[in-house]
């Protein structure tokens, strides 16, 4: 993303929340999770203890965001540690990287 697009006022908070909700719905539906999308704590870890996702789920999420937003996840991406810390950070990454 270019410099001038970064300030938060150009990306209304409401859009970020909408994307977060949309991703939560896609994940819950795609992974058949026994939880309602709005019950996912946006700050809780996606992997391991938090939402309890495992590596197969992460692969499923990669397929979901590839189909939906045209994003290719890579295991050697240095940002992965941050991306998967929470739904909020993941949604932020999708907003930055999406090509559709």
């Amino acid at each position, binding site marked *: 993303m270019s410099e001038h697009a970064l300030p938060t006022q150009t990306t209304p908070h409401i859009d970020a929340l909408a994307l977060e909700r949309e991703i939560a719905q896609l994940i819950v539906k795609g992974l058949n999770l026994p939880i309602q999308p709005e019950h996912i704590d946006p700050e809780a870890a996606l992997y391991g203890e938090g939402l309890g996702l495992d590596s197969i789920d992460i*692969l499923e999420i990669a397929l979901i965001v590839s189909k939906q937003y045209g994003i290719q996840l890579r295991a050697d991406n240095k940002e992965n540690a941050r991306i998967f810390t929470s739904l909020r950070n993941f949604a932020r990454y999708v907003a930055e990287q999406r090509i559709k």
Partner: protein
Amino acid sequence: MSALPLIAHDRPAAVIAYRRGRPISAAQFLHDVQALAAQLPAGAHVLNFCADRYCFAVGLAASLVTGKCSILPSTHTPEVIRHLRAFAPDVFCLSDDPQCPLELPQLLCGQSSAAVNGSWPASGRFQVPQIDAGQLAAYVFTSGSSGTPVPHPKTWGRLVQCVRAEVTRLAPLNPAECAILGTVPAQHMYGFESTVLLPLQSGAALCAERPFFPADIAAALRALPQARVLISTPVHLRALLTAEQALPQLELIVSATAMLPANLAREVESRYGAKLLEIYGSTETGQMASRRTAHEAQWWLWPGVRLTPSDGHCSAHGGHIERPITVADVLEPTGDEHFVLHGRTADLVNIAGKRSSLAYLNHHLNAIPGVIDGAFFVRDDTQASLAGVTRLAALVVAPRLDPAHIIQALRARIDAVFLPRPLLLVEHLPRNATGKLPQHTLTALTAQAAVQQPHLFA
């Protein structure tokens, strides 16, 4: 007893591995093996936890030349590690992760040590170690039904015989010209055979990386020279197709761990322009048959392996199989060398290529303090995901526990892939007069619970 060479590479400069696309020679490998062998502690059992496949191969070879046995459990939960410590009290962990979470004495491989990344004296003599065919090379484990992992001993001779049979099925490929990339871990029986032993015993080059996402698989393949071979699973192959991932020219794709539907096999072959070979095997028997799934339904047994039906099951024997082993799947022999696979016996489950039994999972569920009764089952009322995976469900009677607590307790005991989705609390299980739980009652109860506990369902 006869001896068999550690590797089939017959020249010092023969490429035995690639790491990030950079070749590693057979001479370097043998040098790394000797260096690591000199550092190994006294214990006779090595839990080889190395994620880097080259480190794993060096660890395996160093264990072989020092007469140590590799311990290869299918999962590494605290419960399994506790069991392994009882099984082999001298076991130590060889790992390439400085933060290795396993509660075992640790030896770090490939990071600070000279081994693995060190340089080898170009003037050194190139001599391939010979390993006694009868030497115990590895213990692999199945989950069993009593809740404790069941060990299966593998001698060096039988392992070599098995992968040499596999080599004959790669024809007309010349393995010595192949670079083999695996998406499966080296510790899993299929990965152990096809991504480690197969290259070592055929003169091919293994690839140190284990790519995960579709884009990773493409990048790892691009870093390799031709001829490229991809050792994978239905989950990863489906993921590649779903992501519409482009790949460089492949000579061969191999799939195992779960049945590959013929239409998926045809799609993979036409999308990637490569032959797809499916392999049939189990931890107990090792690999034992192959087929070209896009074109044939019958499986072709490894040379010398035979099936004998008895009591509705088949016993596999001969070839690399040391003693007759009852195969857990339902097989129908269709001639001396062929069979048709009709599916699994009811107790076995396969989730994303990992196998277990309902009896094993139920044992661990019912061992949780506060669980009065509980049963895992396979849901037949849900759609598979994008990667083609359907999870298990569980019904549990535990008036004083909440589902999150039970999941937490299960996480320490069973592989995460088998964690139930959903786990439903019920007042009692609908057991029939013989104590069994008929599938239709389970499905009905799940549907009923879905109405009463809608928050547990998507």
